[in-house]
C-alpha cells in the first residue's frame, strides 16, 4: 500500500515540469488578463487624448474658420452695398487696422489679376470654394502658415480670405507632441500594469497550484491558504478545501473499511472455514455434516449481510440516491417503524412510546430514512434492559424535521461517542450484543446525504440519538404544527 504511491510519484514529478513548459506564453490566462488590462487602459487613454486634442487643437481650428467666415460675410455685404470700390476700400482699411497682423486678403478679377489685398498672386492650389486650404506664405523672409477659404463674387471676381495660423499651428504641434509623449508614457505604464496584473494573477494561482502539487505528491494534509479578504479567490480556495476535506474523509473511510474488513471479517470467515474443515474431517453421519454446513452457511450469510451493508453505505455516500428524493410525510413512516419493532420490544419487556405530530412533511428518500430510523430503534431496543422505555419523538424545527430516539440503556461513553459512527466500531458496552458495528455508520451516511446530521448525546441514563433532516429552502414547509401528543402506550 505504501510502495505504490512512491512508484507513481516519480513519473508525475518528471511530467509536471513538462506540463508547465507546455503552457505557452500566449495560452497563459495571466497574459490574457494582462493584455485585456493593457488594451483597456490604452484605449481609454487614447480616447481621452483624442477628446483633449479635439477640445484644444480642434477648437483653435474652429475659431479661425469662424473668424474667416464672419469676415467674408461682412465683406460680401460691403460688396452688395457699394460694389467693387467699397470692397477694395474695406479690405485696405482692415489690413491697415489689423493689429494682430494675421489677416490675409486677396481680391482678383476674372483674369486672376490682383485688385486688393496683401497676397502677390492667387495661390494655385486654391481652386475650390467648398473646402479649407493651408498655404505656405512668405512674410518678410520668414515662412509661415495660413488657413484660407475661397469665395466667388459677382462679375467673375474671386475673393480669398484667410488668417496666419503659424502661432496656432505651433501650439497645435506642441499639443500633439505632448499628447503623443503622454500616449507613450501610458503605453509603458499599461505594459507595466499588465505585468503587475499577470504577476498578481500568477501569485494567487500559485497558492492553489502548490497545494495541488503537494496533494498529488501524497501530502493530503495540505490545504489552500486563504488571504482573509473574502474575495472570489478565497471563495474558490474554501470550496477546494471543502472538496479536499471530503476526499480526505472518503479516503479515510476507505482505509478504515479496508482495515476493518481485514480484521473484523477474518474471524467469521475463519470460523466458517474451520467448521467446514472440522465437518469434513470428523463428521461421521449425514445429519452431523448437514448441521455443520448449516452453521457455516449462517456464518457466511452474516458476512454477506455485512458486505451488503457496506455497499449500501458506500452507495449512500456516493450521493446517487439523491435522485430518488421526493416529498414524504415522516409521521406514518415513524409509525410503521414503531409497529415493526413493537413485537420485538414486547418480547424483551421494553416499552415503545411514540410522540409525533399529525404530519411532518419533508423531502428525502423514504427507504433510507426508514432504514436509518429502524437502525436507531433497533439499537435502542437491543441495548435497553427489561422494563425500560424507548421513546420515538419527532418535531419540526426551524430548519426541518428532527427525529429523536432515546433509550435507557448503558449509553455510549463520551470517549467513544465521536467514533460511534465509524464503520465496524463497537464500544465496550456493545461487545456482548450481536452486530457488525455498521448501524450508526449507515444512519450517519443517510443524515449527510440529506444535508442533516446525527447527534448522539447522554440521556442520563441511556442514549439520545437525534436525526435532523433539513427541508430544502424552496420547499421549506411553513406553518407546520409543532409536537402534538399522540403517544402510543405499550404495556
Amino acid at each position, binding site marked *: 500500500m505504501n510502495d505504490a504511491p512512491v512508484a507513481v510519484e516519480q513519473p508525475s514529478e518528471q511530467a509536471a515540469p513538462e506540463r508547465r513548459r507546455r503552457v505557452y506564453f500566449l495560452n497563459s490566462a495571466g497574459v490574457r488578463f494582462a493584455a485585456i488590462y493593457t488594451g483597456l487602459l490604452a484605449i481609454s487613454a487614447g480616447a481621452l487624448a483624442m477628446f483633449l486634442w479635439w477640445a484644444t487643437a480642434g477648437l483653435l481650428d474652429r475659431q479661425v474658420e469662424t473668424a474667416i467666415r*464672419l469676415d467674408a460675410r461682412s465683406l460680401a455685404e460691403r460688396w452688395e452695398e457699394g460694389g467693387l470700390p467699397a470692397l477694395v476700400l474695406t479690405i485696405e482699411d482692415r489690413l*491697415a*487696422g489689423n493689429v494682430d497682423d494675421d489677416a490675409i486678403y486677396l481680391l482678383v478679377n476674372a483674369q486672376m489679376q490682383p485688385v486688393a489685398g496683401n*497676397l502677390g498672386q492667387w495661390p494655385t492650389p486654391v481652386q475650390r470654394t467648398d473646402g479649407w486650404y493651408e*498655404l*505656405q506664405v*512668405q512674410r*518678410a523672409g520668414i515662412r509661415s502658415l495660413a488657413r484660407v477659404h475661397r469665395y466667388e463674387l459677382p462679375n467673375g471676381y474671386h475673393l480669398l480670405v484667410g488668417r496666419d495660423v503659424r502661432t496656432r499651428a505651433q501650439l497645435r504641434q506642441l499639443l500633439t507632441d505632448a499628447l503623443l509623449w503622454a500616449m507613450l508614457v501610458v503605453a509603458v505604464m499599461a505594459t507595466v500594469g499588465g505585468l503587475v496584473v499577470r504577476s498578481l494573477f500568477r501569485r494567487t494561482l500559485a497558492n492553489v497550484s502548490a497545494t495541488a502539487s503537494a496533494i498529488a505528491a501524497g501530502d493530503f494534509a495540505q490545504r489552500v491558504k486563504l488571504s482573509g479578504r473574502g474575495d472570489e479567490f478565497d471563495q474558490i480556495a474554501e470550496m477546494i478545501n471543502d472538496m479536499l476535506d471530503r476526499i480526505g474523509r472518503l479516503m479515510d473511510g476507505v482505509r478504515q473499511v479496508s482495515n476493518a474488513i481485514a480484521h473484523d471479517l477474518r474471524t467469521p470467515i475463519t470460523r466458517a472455514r474451520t467448521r467446514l474443515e472440522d465437518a469434513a474431517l470428523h463428521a461421521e453421519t449425514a445429519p452431523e455434516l448437514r448441521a455443520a454446513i448449516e452453521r457455516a452457511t449462517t456464518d457466511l450469510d452474516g458476512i454477506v449481510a455485512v458486505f451488503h451493508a457496506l455497499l449500501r453505505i458506500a452507495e449512500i455516500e456516493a450521493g446517487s440516491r439523491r435522485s430518488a428524493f421526493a416529498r414524504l410525510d415522516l409521521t406514518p413512516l415513524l409509525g410503521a417503524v414503531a409497529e415493526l419493532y413493537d413485537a420485538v420490544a414486547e418480547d424483551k419487556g421494553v416499552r415503545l412510546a411514540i410522540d409525533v405530530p399529525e404530519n411532518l412533511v419533508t423531502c428525502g428518500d423514504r427507504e433510507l430514512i426508514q432504514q436509518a430510523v429502524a437502525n436507531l430503534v433497533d439499537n435502542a431496543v437491543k441495548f435497553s434492559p427489561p422494563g425500560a422505555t424507548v421513546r420515538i419523538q419527532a418535531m419540526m424545527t426551524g430548519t426541518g424535521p428532527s427525529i429523536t430516539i432515546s433509550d435507557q440503556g448503558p449509553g455510549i461513553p463520551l470517549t467513544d461517542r465521536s467514533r460511534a459512527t465509524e464503520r465496524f466500531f463497537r464500544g465496550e458496552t456493545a461487545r456482548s450484543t450481536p452486530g457488525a458495528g455498521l448501524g450508526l455508520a449507515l444512519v450517519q451516511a443517510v443524515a449527510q446525504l440529506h444535508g442533516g446530521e446525527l447527534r448522539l448525546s447522554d440521556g442520563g441514563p441511556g442514549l439520545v440519538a437525534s436525526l435532523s433532516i433539513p427541508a430544502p429552502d424552496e420547499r421549506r414547509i411553513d406553518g407546520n404544527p409543532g409536537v402534538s401528543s399522540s403517544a402510543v402506550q405499550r404495556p
Partner: protein
Amino acid sequence: MAFVSRSTALAGLAGIGVATLALLSGGSPAPPAQVTSDTQAYCRQLGDRVRELAPLATGPSRLMATNLAVEGQSLCMRGEIRGGIRRLRRAVRLVAGTAVRPH
C-alpha cells in the same frame, strides 16, 4: 561579384520607390505665396495714412498715434518690418477712431 550585383539591384529598387513617391506626391511643392503687407513699401503706405488721418484726431490719441508711427517707421528702416507695421497699424487705429480690426 554577387554582392555588388545584389547591392546595385537594391539601390535601383530604392530609387524607383523614391521616384514613385515623388510622382504620387505631385512633384515639387508650390512656392510659398508672398505677403505684400510685410514690406518697406507698406510701411511707408501706413505712415502716409497716419499722416493723413492724424490732423483729424483729437486728444491724446493723436499724440500717441504720432509716436507709434514714428516708432514704426524707425523699426521698418532698421529692417524689423513686421514690428514696425504692427506699431503703424496701432497708430492707424488710434487716429481712425473706430475698430477697423477684422473679426
